């Protein structure tokens, strides 16, 4: 219904409608720079060692379901070797080193990782399924920045603990998840080392490869052997690490279910725990919000990284007076999201990390439908193999519905409405979790007050999913204990005397 009528006639050539209709030819990032070995051992005491029990397991590319390689299955004995190596390194070398020197190694690691960032980004995408656009532009820079940031704290710890003397714990056992494999490794290793600890890291079983490649960075930086050790494996390997008496400090990021198990199993020991667990974060949109930007924030909040984000804004609360308009805009924006091969630079949503996770999400979606919510998914085409889902949302969700209470950890948003700020706050806080929350409004006073009243460790006002090495991150209640990032991220890694 175009009201422009130009008076001129066309007499030469074809002035007609344009040729480009919005198609994108595949634009694949090359994976030729990444060399994956057929098989990996553990990285202990500065060298590669075969698993003592001789067992390996496969890791797949979730976009193609192809096997990438085999990695070692860490037994109790392997964990023991690693802890011993870390302990030795701590007592003989690391505890005697000045903060400036420790920092020097971290600076080197940050710079070395920056040099090989593209290689790591491609590997991250291959192993985990996230779009190359994200691993290239978010995961890798953030990981480098985290290392660089904490390097600068190593020789300034006297400013972090006031007048109190402090010392490192010794050996820190660190268990990380599959949603941001390398980034989580950086989030764990950096503060631990800066504070003078040595580390045994256990990457997630579906995404071990970037951590293993990181061992090359560790070596190239000249870090004394045993300061960083990497033991691969699944749940039992992690459990062995948690149980080990030589590990005083445990840091875990993963599901609330496992976090609780760890806390229970550690009850009789004097173990220091930090836990970054699940979430079911509320995303509140007031009628005086910058609407188009809020739509964008909601989309980023739940569909970024296929929704595999602990702080995903998975429960939308929109003021009733604008809910129709808002949801319409939201659906329209969702339709422009491209689900496709993770190595394609135009892909917005990559593969779901594993068959297991895919099944879990599908199960919850089914539950949602059964419990009476109204399901919507976009109409995009999915690749014919691999684990993929379309971005989706549920309307008409009741507060007690399973999909409203349980963490889905996928690209699925629930939509609810509210009438007043009080109602929004009450509904947002109605959860056993407390990791993050988002709130959108043009009114400053309202934003500050609502932020204050929301029971969440991170509140994003007029934005969402923003991270910075100096910004502390962590949750209330069942979203975990402790903070990562910033000055506050040092606290878990030193014993105050």
């Amino acid at each position, binding site marked *: *219904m*175009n*009201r*422009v*009528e*130009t*008076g*001129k*006639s*066309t*007499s*030469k*050539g*074809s*002035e007609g*409608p*344009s*040729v*480009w*209709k*919005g*198609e*994108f*030819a*595949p*634009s694949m990032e090359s994976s030729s720079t990444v060399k994956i070995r057929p098989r990996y051992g553990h990285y202990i005491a500065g060298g590669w060692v075969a698993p003592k029990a001789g067992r390996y397991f496969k890791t797949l590319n979730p976009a193609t379901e192809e096997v990438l390689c085999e990695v070692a299955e860490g037994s109790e004995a392997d964990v023991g070797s690693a802890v011993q190596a870390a302990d030795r390194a701590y007592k003989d070398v690391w505890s005697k080193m000045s903060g400036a020197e420790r920092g020097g190694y971290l600076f080197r690691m940050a710079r070395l990782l920056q040099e090989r960032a593209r290689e790591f980004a491609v590997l991250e995408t291959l192993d985990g399924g996230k779009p190359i*656009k994200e691993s290239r*532009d978010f995961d890798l820079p953030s990981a480098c920045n985290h290392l660089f940031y904490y390097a600068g704290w190593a020789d300034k710890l006297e400013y972090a603990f006031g007048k109190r003397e402090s010392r490192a714990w010794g050996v820190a056992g660190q268990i990380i998840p599959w949603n941001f494999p390398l980034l989580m490794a950086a989030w764990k290793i950096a503060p631990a080392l800066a504070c003078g600890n040595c580390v045994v890291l256990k990457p997630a079983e579906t995404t071990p490869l970037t951590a293993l490649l990181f061992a090359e960075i560790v070596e190239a930086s000249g870090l004394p052997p045993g300061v960083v050790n990497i033991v691969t494996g699944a749940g039992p390997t992690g459990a062995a690490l948690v149980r080990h008496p030589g590990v005083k400090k445990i840091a875990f990021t993963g599901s609330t279910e496992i976090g609780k198990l760890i806390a229970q199993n550690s009850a009789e020991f004097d173990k220091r725990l930090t836990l970054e667990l699940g979430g079911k974060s509320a995303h509140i949109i007031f009628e*005086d*919000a*910058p*609407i*188009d*930007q*809020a739509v*964008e*924030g909601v989309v980023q909040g739940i569909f970024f990284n296929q929704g595999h984000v602990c702080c995903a804004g998975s429960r939308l609360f929109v003021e009733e007076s604008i809910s129709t308009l808002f949801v319409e805009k939201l659906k329209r924006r969702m339709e*422009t999201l491209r689900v496709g091969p993770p190595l394609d*630079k*135009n892909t917005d949503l990559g593969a779901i990390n594993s068959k297991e996770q895919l099944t879990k999400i599908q199960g919850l979606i089914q539950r949602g439908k059964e419990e009476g919510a109204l399901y919507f998914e976009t109409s995009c085409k999915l690749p014919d193999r691999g684990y993929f889902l379309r971005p989706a949302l549920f309307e008409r969700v009741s507060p007690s519905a399973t999909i409203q209470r349980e963490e889905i950890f996928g690209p699925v948003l629930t939509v609810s409405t509210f009438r007043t700020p009080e109602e929004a706050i009450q509904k947002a806080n109605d959860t056993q979790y407390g990791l993050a929350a988002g709130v959108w409004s*043009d009114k400053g006073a309202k934003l500050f007050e609502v932020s204050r009243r929301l029971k969440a460790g991170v509140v994003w006002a*007029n*934005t969402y999913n923003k991270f910075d090495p100096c910004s502390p991150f962590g949750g209330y209640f069942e979203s975990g204990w402790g903070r990562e990032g910033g000055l506050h991220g040092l606290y878990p890694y030193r014993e105050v005397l």
Partner: protein
Amino acid sequence: MGVKIRLTNGVLETIPHHPIDSVGVSERAASFTKRSLKKGSKLEALKTMVAMMDLTTLEGADTPERVRQLCGRARQPLPAHLDELVGGVPPVAAVCVYPALVPVAVEFLAETSVQVASVSTAFPSSQVSGELKLLDVQQAVSWGATEIDMVISRNAFLRGDYQTVYDEIVKVKEACGTGAHLKVILETGELGTLDQVYRASKLAILAGADFIKTSTGKVQPGATLPVTLVMLQSIFDHFQQSGQRIGMKPAGGVRTAKEAIAYLCMVYEVLGVEWLTPTLFRFGASRLLNDVLRQILRQVTGSYYNEEVFGSE
């Protein structure tokens, strides 16, 4: 704060306050620069850009001969042998000149599909009487311009006299008659905030603009992705409410094909495929054409050509 306007039909209309978060806008705008167009899609997009271009010369030093050469370029962007090599490049959408050069352009573009766009209303400042601005338009139209690019009165806008801004646009639209379409230049670089840009967009559309345009090209910053995004969003909101499709033209600041691709991706995702046509989207540019042509040649032949072989004016 909402703005009240007395419309031509006597109704008192309120343009409500529409808050915009500039950080969010910048982030979304930046995301379009990451879109990667390759191979066939890229070539299509590049040729589309040429068809969408308003080839512009707005200098005090413009003479008839200068404009005649520009028109030659407009009709046939590439010399024949190169044109054949790449499978044909369409003529540009329009040539954009000062009113005094309109007769020249009209003469040299007769019997072609290239439109003659004239700036008007005392472009670029608009700091003259309303009568003079209207006379400017009338003359351009009478000399044969088929597109009028007017400027809003920033004087009136920034002092809060939105009614005057509205009334002027209405009168100019009347003066265009049925022979010329109206582009309204907001001069976004002078408006200060994105909220103001959105407000000006709504005002212009309400008053009868066929196209809303970012800049005169005489003030920095000119067109940027964030500003364009906000204007596209105002166009979308208007379409939702009325079913009417308004056109958009970023001008002054789009210099490379790479940047232009980001704009096209943005138009596609924010408005939809219907807007991917010169009837609804234009690039106001002069230097852009050469870069686009160079990219077209590279896509087809694999080599980077130097501009000297293009026959630039």
